[in-house]
């Protein structure tokens, strides 16, 4: 699993990103942002991408390297919903683990927030690099059309189910209206109708399999234990 390998086991705190020898980092942000454990969705998108990127938060990187890492991470995740899911899962994995793991997660998040704020401070209006401006993760999710994240991922499951159900409707309608099409031979005695029937059964099984995995990786991490729909009595 890609994001779970993100935390270097031995973080080095010897060097600081704002070390004088890197003259391209002349300014400190006015207020170094601190991780807010309550809502990771308010973190800048760039910080999220940095957190999930393969960079080592103990090292120093040039601006070009940081930009490239952010861009590649952005491309590799693609869907902001997946990004948010992984981010929250990764954070909660740290919170639920040992004290050492929690410390590493906290440190890495602080590093990501600091670098992101620094980059955003120097490129406030660069629309060609939207991930460098102050866009937060929740804003990115919203611009991607994901209003409420859980609802968005659930809607995606509906969309994937649509072709399977549409195939069922198609089979029913063709069997009523276009018997000639269904009787057309595909291979020997196997005709279109029988083939579609078998495809339908296999498609249902495949969708169910996919849905199980999708829920585990995309829906469950978003639904924190405290915000389940309603609780049992």
């Amino acid at each position, binding site marked *: 699993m890609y994001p779970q390998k993100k935390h270097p086991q031995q973080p080095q705190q010897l060097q600081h990103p704002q070390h004088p020898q890197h003259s391209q980092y002349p300014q400190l942000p006015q207020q170094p942002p601190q991780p807010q454990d309550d809502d990771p969705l308010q973190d800048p998108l760039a910080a999220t991408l940095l957190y999930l990127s393969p960079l080592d938060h103990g090292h120093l990187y040039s601006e070009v390297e940081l930009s490239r890492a952010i861009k590649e991470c952005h491309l590799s995740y693609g869907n902001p919903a997946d990004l948010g899911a992984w981010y929250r899962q990764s954070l909660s994995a740290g919170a639920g683990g040992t004290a050492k793991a929690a410390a590493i997660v906290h440190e890495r998040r602080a590093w990501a927030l600091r670098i992101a704020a620094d980059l955003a401070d120097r490129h406030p209006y660069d629309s060609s690099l939207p991930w460098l401006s102050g866009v937060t993760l929740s804003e990115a999710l919203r611009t991607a059309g994901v209003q409420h994240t859980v609802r968005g991922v659930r809607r995606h499951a509906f969309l994937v189910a649509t072709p399977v159900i549409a195939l069922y409707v198609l089979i029913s309608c063709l069997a009523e209206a276009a018997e000639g099409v269904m009787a057309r031979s595909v291979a*020997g*005695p196997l005709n279109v*109708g029988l083939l579609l029937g078998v495809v339908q059964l296999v498609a*249902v099984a495949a969708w169910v399999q996919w849905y199980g995995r999708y829920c585990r990786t995309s829906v469950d991490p978003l639904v924190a234990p405290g915000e389940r729909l309603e609780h*049992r009595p």
Partner: protein
Amino acid sequence: MTRDYVTADLPVFFVFLVCALFLVMWAGPQRGTVSEFYVSDGILKPAHNGVALFGDVMSAAALLGSPGLIALTGYDGTLSVLGPAVSWIVILLLVAERYHSTTEFTIGDRLARRLKSRPVHLAAGVATLLVCLLYLIAQLVGASALTVSILGTAGEGMEQAVSIGLGALMITYIVLGGMRAATLVQTVKAVMLVGGGAGLAVLVLARYDFDPGALLSAAARGSGHGEDFLSPGIRFGDAGPMGLDSLSEQLALLIGAAGLPHLLMRIGTVSTPSGARRSIQYAAQLTCVFYLAAIVLGFGAAALVGTDAIAANNPSGNTAVLLLAANLGGSLLLTLVACLAFATVLAVVAGVTLAAATSLAHDIYGAFITRGTVSGERELFVARVAAVVVGTTATMLAVFARSLNVSFLVGLAFALAGSAIVPALLYSMFWKGFTTRGATWSIYGGLVTSVVLVCLSPQVSGSPTALLPHLDFAVFPLRNPGLVSIPAGFLLGWLGSALSGPAARTEPVPIPRTAPEGAARHR
């Protein structure tokens, strides 16, 4: 024709099976609480529950009816197995996790979370009882029809005996063990069903050197229809109104499955919503595998036995699998498959009886009559009495209703569930503006619409195969009311809520009724 094959093994096998089930049931400890009786304390493993859920869905109609229909009508029969498979998607997407996380035992509990407790518990209880009774009668009538075809004309008197015997067996079973017993018998039956179905399918394919093409060609030859057997049009002949009728039936099967009380009840037997999701996944995968096997069995029966021989033995094709088993493996295999069929009926009947008894004791007695003040011990006692009452009623009705067509009864049960239970369930889970009036309107309205439409349909009067062949008041052309009654249920639910006005919507959420021992559930 099968008469020559049947041996005395059948009763021996069946008695052995029943005794084994009773023995295993008594092996574990029992606490004697309503939660244990209704949902096994909600501590089943998802995989175990999924297998049992698969067993709940696979009634005798699926084991015997689907392959039979395929053997008789070829391609048109295969359509009948697609709907139940696709309906799992509907259940997974819309119902599974939400229903699990928001209900205690019954559909009434789910509705009463946001709405007034007494009216919705009564409405949900009435709908649940009606659906369950219809489903029970269908299973018992099917079992007695099966007896006749296995034992031949000599079994004519056996019919009622089998109905009553199975009824008594299931009552004992449920009264003694509740959900634990139902789960156990479903699991055993589901494993037997998948194993038996897949085994028979492999035997059929082995006859044709594992070449599906050869099997299909032989089926087309054996059917007497030639290549037409593999393409649409045999079942309904000319299209026209039959096209709409088939659409209505498929809609009822697709939507109604999400409202069957015994399926919904089984969702509550695991501890977490994701567990409910996983058990439905297992059930759906098993369903797809079994239906693939059922298609092979249907075409195999047409190829090896011949459609004419099947139709001569039973006009609705219900004995096709039995004839196929006799053809493949002689007397022993026939006995095993017949035993499997009876176990299937017994298991489904047990599950449905439990759902009906739960609804009667929990919704109608507990929440409506005593307003939720009843103690756990008393409700458990009432639930056991309710199982006896429901079982006895269904058995008596099944003895009198044995001339009814099984698929008609099952279709009607699905249509009732789809038009009375599903609209209220979905509205209550997805629409904040749903009100108590909307719930009662959609449940009672859906029930009344379906029943009235069935009474006015060609199933009851005006055709030679109808219930009252010499009368004719069939003004509604469709045999299955689903196409009209399901939209009617949704429309009435919306209308009732809209007419309640905004004041009714802001009523405080009532505290859900909790049995005194409810806190002891392992949630």
